[in-house]
Structures are given as structure tokens and as C-alpha cells.
């Protein structure tokens, strides 16, 4: 359960304050499939960073599963990211020197899971995204779509409740993009909360709820279908 109440975020660019989010209030229940739409600079990435506990709000309150996030220590935020949230980025953000398997294992390393357990879980997840035969390949040996699927498997490593995707299809051809969106749909059906940040309306159309951001404000919140 994600509860944002009048959340704002102000950055300082030198001495000039820049308002990235301006009093956004929204609730996202567990198991929802939500897209966040908006042009660049609308604050959707900032919103995702806040929801993903990569950053804390400058004002307002954010409760994740009833726990207030602002004021938490860095280590607590790291633990929340590790256990509750899986990130999928536009540019994949895989570690270039590690194999697909090792990339998927990484969140489990931080959870201090034991090696054998970690490996079998990572193989299972790679199988789930259809890359069971690519485990020992490095990212440079994989196609864009395959890389994003490795990233998705990594996001699922510690069974998080929430999957946060930031323009996940932005660097993919349309076929690979559709496959990724299909995987999100599957995750949603499996009960995960999936939040996709995008400026692509066709992807937004796949989700059950669309949040529209503009100039750091939530301008519409409408159900799909």
C-alpha cells in the first residue's frame, strides 16, 4: 500500500530552487497495475524515485505499508529497496562485468542469502523471463530485449511487492517492448503492484489506472477499461 499525501520535492540547482513535485496526493493499493504518464520534466521520474525510496520528499508524507518513509536512515531505505521494491530502468542498468546470473543474484547478495539458494533462485527467475539458456552471458552478449528481461528477473529477486519501471521500453524495439509489457501484465496477474513510468500512451493503455503528471502536479487519475 503506497500512500502519498501532499508530497513535494524541491531541488536546488545552485541557489535556484526547482520544484519537481508539487503537492501530489495519491494512493496505490497492493496489486494495482498503474502507469504514470507525462512529458519530460513533469516530475514522473522524481515520483518514481520517491516511491522507490531512492529519495525522500521535501514536504508531505509518504507511507509505505503504513510506515512513514521520510526521516528514515539511509540503511533503512536501502533495506526497503532491497526487500520491497524491484527497479526496472530505461537503460537496463546491469553490471557490465557480471553475467546475467550474477546480475540477478545481486539483490540476494545484499539480503545475505546463501550462495546455493541464491543461484537456484536466480536460475528460476531467468527461466521465468525466458532466458534460462543465457545465464552465463554478459550483458554485452545479449540483445536489448534480453537485457531488459535480465533486469526484470533481477527486480524480482527478493520477491518484492512493488515493481517500479522507468520507461522500460524506451530503449527497445516495439516487439521487445511488447514482450516486456506482457511480462508486466503477468506480474500484475500474479499479484504484484506494478508501476510503469512512461510517456508512451500505448503502454499506458495496457495498465488499469493512469496517473497524469504535468509540471509536478497530478492532473488526472483515471481508471482504464
Amino acid at each position, binding site marked *: 500500500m503506497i500512500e502519498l499525501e501532499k508530497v513535494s520535492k524541491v531541488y536546488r540547482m545552485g541557489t535556484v530552487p526547482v520544484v519537481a513535485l508539487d503537492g501530489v496526493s495519491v494512493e496505490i493499493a497492493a496489486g494495482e497495475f498503474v502507469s504514470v504518464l507525462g512529458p519530460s520534466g513533469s516530475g514522473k521520474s522524481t515520483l518514481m524515485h520517491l516511491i522507490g525510496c*531512492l529519495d525522500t520528499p521535501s514536504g508531505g508524507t509518504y507511507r509505505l505499508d503504513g510506515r512513514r518513509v521520510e526521516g528514515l536512515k539511509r540503511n533503512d531505505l536501502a533495506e526497503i529497496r532491497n526487500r520491497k521494491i524491484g527497479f526496472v530502468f530505461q537503460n537496463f*542498468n546491469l553490471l557490465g562485468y557480471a553475467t546475467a546470473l550474477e546480475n540477478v543474484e545481486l539483490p540476494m547478495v545484499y539480503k545475505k542469502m546463501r550462495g546455493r539458494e541464491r543461484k537456484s533462485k536466480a536460475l528460476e527467475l531467468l527461466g521465468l523471463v525466458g532466458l534460462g539458456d543465457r545465464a552465463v552471458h554478459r550483458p554485452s552478449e545479449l540483445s536489448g530485449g534480453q537485457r531488459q528481461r535480465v533486469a526484470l528477473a533481477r527486480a524480482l529477486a527478493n520477491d518484492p511487492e512493488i515493481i517500479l519501471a522507468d520507461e522500460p521500453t524506451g530503449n527497445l524495439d516495439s516487439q521487445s517492448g511488447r514482450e516486456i509489457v506482457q511480462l508486466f501484465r503477468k506480474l500484475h496477474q500474479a499479484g504484484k503492484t506494478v508501476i510503469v513510468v512512461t510517456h508512451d500512451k500505448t503502454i499506458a493503455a495496457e495498465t488499469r489506472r493512469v496517473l497524469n503528471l504535468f509540471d509536478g502536479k497530478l492532473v488526472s487519475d483515471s481508471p482504464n477499461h
Partner: protein
Amino acid sequence: MYYLKLVGQFYQDMRRQKLRTFLTMFGICWGTIAVVLLLAFGVGLEARSRQSMHGMGTNVVILWGSKTTMPFEGMGIGRQIRFRQEDAEYLERKIPQMALISAEYSKWNVKIIYKKNARSITLKGVQPSFGELRNIIPEQGGRFLNDLDMQHSRRTIFLGNKLRDALFGEGSNPAGRVVMLGGVPYTVVGVLQKKTQNSNYSGSDENMALIPASTFRGSYGHRYADNLVYRAVDPDLSELVNKDVYRELGRRFKFDPADKEALSLWDTTEGDRFIKYFFMGFKAFLAIAGVFTLLVGGIGVANIMYVVVRERRREVGIKMALGATGKTILMQFMVETFLIVALGAGVGFGFSAAVVQVFKLPIMSNVIIYVGTPTISPAVALGTMLVLGIVGFSAGYAPARRAARMDPVRALEF
């Protein structure tokens, strides 16, 4: 596996910054060599200096009689103090901390002849304890003068090794041969084993000949010894014994024990103490010089770690997003720093050990006479490792902490 990968990545980072990494490791390597080798040579040189000084005898005191300068019990000043062998025996009886003592009689320009070889030498009459006092060790197949020689005033003679070379030929064993001293035959009993001696008071031992003090007195009619040589049971007691010597001889010869000029005394334990403190300072200087070289190397390591952290900001961001804590990131960069330091230090230690080994080769034997045998002592090795650890920690901590404190959002944007 993951940690192996970390090492693998470390290797890749290092390759990307080949020259810089090489220079950095070279800095640490050079620093290690500086500390280890400087101290190894310091230790060797100290041992050598001690050994050379002990060529004259370990912790011995040489005592000459001189003239009184203070009136005492009705006696005037300017009286000459002269020793006999009995005075040595008296001191040995009276002073319990006196370990060994010998009277030493000398005669200059004595002609010694063996067949057609003749040399003019300094001849000394000594007691058997003289050998041990002055580190005079006989070569194999010979012996030093003994108590029987003394008791029976035997005409036995002990030769310096150079003198033996001149009379009998290099390396020969003349024990049992007869040499002539002023027309009187003496039987050679032994030859001095070659020793390094950097100090003396009447010529180097290698050119002398020694006969029993009793024989000397009988042959040359000397009533007085030139000097006494003695050693306290412990070098730290040497000063105490010297005081007792003044008191006892003062009583015997009737001079004021406070009259320092009445006796002339050379306490070589002072030299030992000097060497001890000189080398303490010398080694401290060498250590400081080496440690500063290491610190400069450490600055190089810190510099390259800042570059590595900067280049890997994005990776740090990814790891943070996946739940890595600051501590995990910190550890990763610390491990890398220690790897650089350990590699540089390993090469440095290896090189130093090799240099030390080279000095143990036979062809270096002429060099080590002067500089001693360099030795890597366990204390030096341990101390260097400790300093390296501190350098590694200091060099790695600041860059690693910068990585650990990065803002994940900004790190990911990079």
C-alpha cells in the same frame, strides 16, 4: 564467486588506468623497499659495527696508571702510579663484580726470527685470561697461553695471524715450531683466528706476539705492566666496577679515589652504549624516511581511488538501488585499495628479500665486511606491514566513504 568477480573488476579498473595504477603501485612498492631495505642495512651495519668494535674485546675496560693530581694523606702530587700483576690479582680478589682481569706488559721493536724471516714487532706479556678478554681465539690446531705456561714461565708464544703469514707463510700452522726472540727460542702454541678489529690501543692484534707475563718479566726485567685489562660480570656493572677500582687502587697506592687523573681508563662499554643509541637514532631516521616514502605512495593510492570511485558512480547507484548499504559500498572500495597496496607491497617485499639474498652471495663478501649483512628482521617486516595497513586504510577510507555517501538518484543519472 561474487567476490572473485570483485577482484576481476578490480583488475579491469586497473587495466583501464594502466599507467596511473602502475605508478601508484610503484609508489607503494618503492616505499616498502625503502623501509625494508633501509632498516635491513641499518640492522646489518649495527651488527657489523658491534662485531668490529668487539674485535678488541667485548665490554672490556683498559686501565693505565697515571700521575696523581691531588694530595692525599700527606703525599704530594705528581706521583706515578704503576701496576704489577699482583695488583690485578688484588683487584680480582677485592671486587666481586670483576669477571676477568689481566695485566699486560709490552715491549716495542722486538725482533722475531724464524729461519730467514725476521720482523720487528710489539711483544706482549699477558695472563691467560687476556685471550678471553680480548676475543683472541686460536685457529684450529693451536691454543692460547694457559696457566701452566704462566706457572712455569714457559717460553711459549702466541702469534697474530698477519705475523704468522709473514714468518711461516699464509695459512700455515706453525704450532710446535720454534721462533727466536733476541736469541732466545720460543715455541709457538697457536695463531690468532682472523678477526675484524676497528679499535686498538697499542697496535692491531694480528701483528703482535704474546708470551706469558711471568716469562716476560723474567726475560725483559720489566717490573711494571703497561696496563690492565678487565671486564665486569655485566656491562651495566662496568661503571660500578670502575668506581671500585679507583677505591681499591686508591687504598693500595694511597691516592684520593676522587682523583680521576691518577688512573687513565678506557671503558669500551661506553662505545657499546654509544653504538646502541647512535643506531637507535639512525634506525629511527631510516624508518621515518621510509615511512614518509610510503605515505607519499599512499597519497597516490588515494588519488587513483578517487578516480575509480568517480568512474564507477553509476555502478554505485545501481547497487544502492538494489539495496546495497553504504557499508557494503565502502567495503568494496576498501578491499580494492588494500589490493593495490598489497600488490605493491608484495612486489616491494620480494625485491627487498632478493637484494638481501644477493648480499649473501660469496662475491659480496668484500662488501659486507664494511656494510654488514643486511637482515630483514621480523620486527621490521611486521612494522612495515602495520604501516602499510595504516596507509591502505587512510588512502582508501576517504574515497570509499565518498562512494558510500553518494546520493543514489544522482549516481544513477551519471
